[in-house]
């Protein structure tokens, strides 16, 4: 029994240490973004010799949103002779195919890729196929529900004038933030995640994350690195690590804001969160050791890279921590409970990866100039257990993927726009 109690206590202390590391990291990011020197993005580069760009738009049953993004891409302020748009129709069974063909007939630079039959489904598979036909030197990716502003392709593409840049990432802003409690909470989370977290990591030369949409990458590098792993659901996180481990970097463009449609339904959000967690943890299993041993990364990049990899492991560790403290409680170890329970909750609340801590979001909201939204901060409490449950399930999925080597199936996020 003594050994069991020792192990349970040791786990609690280890968990506290891990969560404290995240807390310190987020606080440091907050200070850096709040009043540190900001790193310039490449928006000031004015160059007529722009790279050729292929815009890829993965789509699976996107009839509700397809027209919006295509209209906006058609209007894009980028030389048309250097631009092609490849909507990837991935086994759609609704009117997506007809809509894409209609646009392709009207605009010659829209070249849909229809994927049917035996071709495996999934964003990563669609991107791999599209890379084979894309003519652009630079690939820009938008999810189908995004509404890119007119000059954004240029803003993103210009970063590749820096030969060290392997990928670029813009800022995601929910357009339906005011719809309900969930969209409001997701909106303030995104604000913290991009306005503070991503920008601070970019400022500090750490690892800003390529997020798979409102972003782009060099085609030749990605092809050279073997494309996207068909077994990994978080192709964006995987690319981030692939690039850094091969000496490239990700540029973060806080100026490149793009509207997205945030999930309006908790069931949809639960599935999305579980998929993100599963994909991210798959990347963690694959890249934890290479990140640790890499000679291309600096010490602080390794620290940040490891913490970033473990973000979706945290909820699972916290669940174990809660069970651990319940067991300790019934074993009569009241001292450790009295001392640590408050710490456990406060650390757990504050160290959730892209579910940023309250002070980080508060600072981000002030930076964004939306002071009324700070009243939403206490309501993040509603998400606490929800996030722990669904992110933990995602971790378990990834663990089973690792053990069984099973084929992963992409679950598309449901859209809410009225077509």
């Amino acid at each position, binding site marked *: 029994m003594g050994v069991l109690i020792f192990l349970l206590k040791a786990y609690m202390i280890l968990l506290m240490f891990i969560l404290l590391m995240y807390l310190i990291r987020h606080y440091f990011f907050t200070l850096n973004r709040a009043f540190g020197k900001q790193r310039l993005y490449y928006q000031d580069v004015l160059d007529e010799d722009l790279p050729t760009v292929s815009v890829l738009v993965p789509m699976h049953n996107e009839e509700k949103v397809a027209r919006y993004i295509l209209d906006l891409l058609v209007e894009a302020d980028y030389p048309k002779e250097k631009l092609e748009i490849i909507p990837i129709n991935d086994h759609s069974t609704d009117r997506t195919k007809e809509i894409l063909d209609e646009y392709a007939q009207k605009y010659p630079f829209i070249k849909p890729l229809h994927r049917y039959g035996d071709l495996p489904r999934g964003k990563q598979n669609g991107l791999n196929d599209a890379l084979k036909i894309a003519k652009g030197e630079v690939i820009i990716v938008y999810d189908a529900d995004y509404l890119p502003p007119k000059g954004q392709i240029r803003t993103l593409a210009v970063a590749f004038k820096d030969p060290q840049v392997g990928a670029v990432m813009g800022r995601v802003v929910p357009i339906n933030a005011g719809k309900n409690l969930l969209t409001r909470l997701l909106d303030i989370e995104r604000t913290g995640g991009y306005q503070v977290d991503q920008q601070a990591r970019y400022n500090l030369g750490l690892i800003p994350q390529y997020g798979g949409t409102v972003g782009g990458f060099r085609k030749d590098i990605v092809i050279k690195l073997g494309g996207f792993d068909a077994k990994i659901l978080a192709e964006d996180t995987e690319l981030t690590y692939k690039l850094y481990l091969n000496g490239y970097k990700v540029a973060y463009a806080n100026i490149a804001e793009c509207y997205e449609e945030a999930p309006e339904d908790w069931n949809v959000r639960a599935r999305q969160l579980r998929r993100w967690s599963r994909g991210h943890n798959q990347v963690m299993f694959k890249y934890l050791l290479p990140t640790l041993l890499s000679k291309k990364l600096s010490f602080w990049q390794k620290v940040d890279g490891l913490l970033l990899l473990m973000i979706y492991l945290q909820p699972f560790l916290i669940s174990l921590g809660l069970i651990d403290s319940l067991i300790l409680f019934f074993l009569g170890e009241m001292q450790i409970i009295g001392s640590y329970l408050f710490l456990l909750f406060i650390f757990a609340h504050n160290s959730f990866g892209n579910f940023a801590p309250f002070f980080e979001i508060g600072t981000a909201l002030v930076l964004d100039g939306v002071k009324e939204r700070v009243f939403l901060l*206490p309501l993040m409490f509603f998400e606490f257990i929800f996030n722990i449950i669904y992110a933990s399930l995602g971790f378990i999925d990834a663990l089973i993927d690792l053990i069984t080597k099973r084929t992963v199936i992409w679950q598309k996020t449901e859209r809410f726009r009225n077509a």
Partner: protein
Amino acid sequence: MKSMAYPQDYSKISKVEKPVIGYARFGRVLKFNRYLFLLQLTLLLFVFEFLVIFLLEDYFKVLSSITKRVLEDSYTKSYKFLKLTLEYSVSQGRLPTLQESFIYLILSLLSLLLLTRKSNPLPKYVSAWLMYIAFVYFVSSFYFLLFLEKFPYTERDFAILYLLQQTGVFIFIPLVLGLSLSVFTFSPLNLLFNAFTILLTLIYSSVFGGIRYIFFVYVLKEFSYIHMPAMFFIFGPLLDFIYIVSFYSLCLYMTLRLLQKRQEAFYQWGF
């Protein structure tokens, strides 16, 4: 070029006319006063921590006397914590009967089964919380059903555990709020607002913590120890965290509003 999309509400991107063009949000940082930042950190943290430690014995003495008045059958004891003597009053609690444990076990198990069903109509975030509550009660009732005699706590242990937890909350309020609110250094008034917020939070916490303690002791006396885990894992520090963040939000909002009226600048270029 004519849009091929159908008109709908997402296209209504509001156009706001502003009298002054401010710093664009992608590159602005907060107006920063290094001295005010350090002054706030030092004053908010040290002054309030000192205040908490200084008043801790008196707070628990007052709470103890109120408890004694409310719960007439309670008795008074004290607990040595570092060099402090913390007084408490507590009524005798009771163990649950086998029937009680069994009823709670069945109820929590049924709740878990219903909540995990696909046809559950409740929003998922509500279900998640209810599942957590049901899980804690399931573990608790299961334990009392099988190991009733081995339950390691008495009402005195509970009181001491609560004392320690509440002390932790008091100590962490200045730390959490001090560190997070010191970031805002728009005006010397920030120090005043932030200090007032921490003071208000501590007052709220002492009232809320006191009422909660008396209520918990009453529940343990009337409805048994089966509720004790829920008192720590559901209605304990998690609830404290909600009002701490609420006071942070309120302070931030009021600060920005008041300073905006005084036409204080919030931003500067970060490059």
